[in-house]
């Protein structure tokens, strides 16, 4: 028996990433960051914009997600998301475009607090990506 679990990240077009033997995954769940280890209880949660960290042994991979759902069951973690990219090959121009778009959205009047919070959060994350 290995001491890891399986991770699958899918987006609508294709299976984005499929890994075996992952030791830990940290996801930006809606109610705060959540680290998932092997034999976690079955859980369903959804994501807010943020960074997914995947640890395989000593290696670490990072992905930016905008939204999504996580499901963990029998040591299989599936993440469904419509917007995801690898932090290793970020296109800074694209990130900038999406920052300005989000800011535009934020300037609309008819937003509730939750939405405002999410948009602000998204801008923060995107900006922090561009700094690195």
């Amino acid at each position, binding site marked *: 028996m290995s001491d890891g679990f399986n991770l699958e990240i899918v987006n*609508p*077009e294709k299976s984005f990433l499929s890994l075996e033997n992952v030791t830990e995954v940290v996801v930006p*769940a809606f109610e705060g960051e959540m680290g998932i280890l092997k034999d976690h209880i079955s*859980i369903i*949660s*959804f994501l807010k914009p943020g960074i997914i960290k995947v640890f395989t042994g000593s290696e670490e991979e990072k992905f930016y997600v905008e939204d999504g*759902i996580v499901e963990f069951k029998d040591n299989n973690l*599936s993440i*469904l998301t*419509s917007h995801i990219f690898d932090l290793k090959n970020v296109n800074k121009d694209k990130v900038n475009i999406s920052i300005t778009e989000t800011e535009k959205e934020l300037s609309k009047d008819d937003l509730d607090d939750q939405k405002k919070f999410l948009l602000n959060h998204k801008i923060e994350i995107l900006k922090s990506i561009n700094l690195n």
Partner: protein
Amino acid sequence: MASLDDLKKRISSVKSTQKITKAMKMVAASKLRRAQENAEKGRPYSDKMNNIILNLSNNITDDENSPKLLVGSGEDKVHLCIVMTSDRGLCGGFNTNIIKKAKLYFQKVLEEGKILKIITVGSKGYDQLKRAYKENIIEKISFKESKYVNYFDADKVGKIIIDKFEKKEFDVCAIFYNQFKNVITQIPQEQKIIPLKASESERSSSEDNYEFEPEEDEILSNLLPKNISTQIFKAMLENSASEQGSRMSAMDNATRNAGEMVDKLTIQYNRSRQAAITKELIEIISGAESL
């Protein structure tokens, strides 16, 4: 009987038609491979999404307070039908099959005295439906500009549907599309997306205990709108694979038919050529004899 010249012209025109259909078949075949791949790649997402929603709805027992998208608006008066067809023709029975299926449903709805609203996705569907159901079509959407099926387009359609549902413009929503089975078989499908309530038989199949964060109904109300876009996207993927498959087999048939026609015309051409020669010979011989 047609003259030799006429026959020659017809043969060459059939031959050039054959060239076109052959080329279209090749193009469809290469597009089909891509579309099929995409459809297969897209399946895990929608399957997983379905699974999660099934699990969630299993955990919801209180029908009254659960999200409207799941249980419906409680009425059954206005039906919205999303008819998904292609933007291009020359693909055999592809569009006609969807329309046929949809029309059956329309008739049933109208006979029961309910209100029917139609959204057509793809211009061919609109062309075929506008004659009989002009006043029922509330919107027509076409993605002629996008080269490939993408989630962004599907999301647009999904948002329109949800927007209309929230304005209480309809109670039940069904989508029509072709499911890709293989190159020669595509099955027209009718799928209810609102309300989504899983049927009883499906319900009992999975019984897992999940921990939810946040609460079930909050997750559900976030998930359901996404699910609608996902289902639309799935339908679009299946549709594009079916369209290419259908076009490929239609064009294959057309090429074969053209080939047969060329053979027939060639035989006819040769016969009449020989007849003309024989006639000339007889004329010469009988002329010589009479001298």
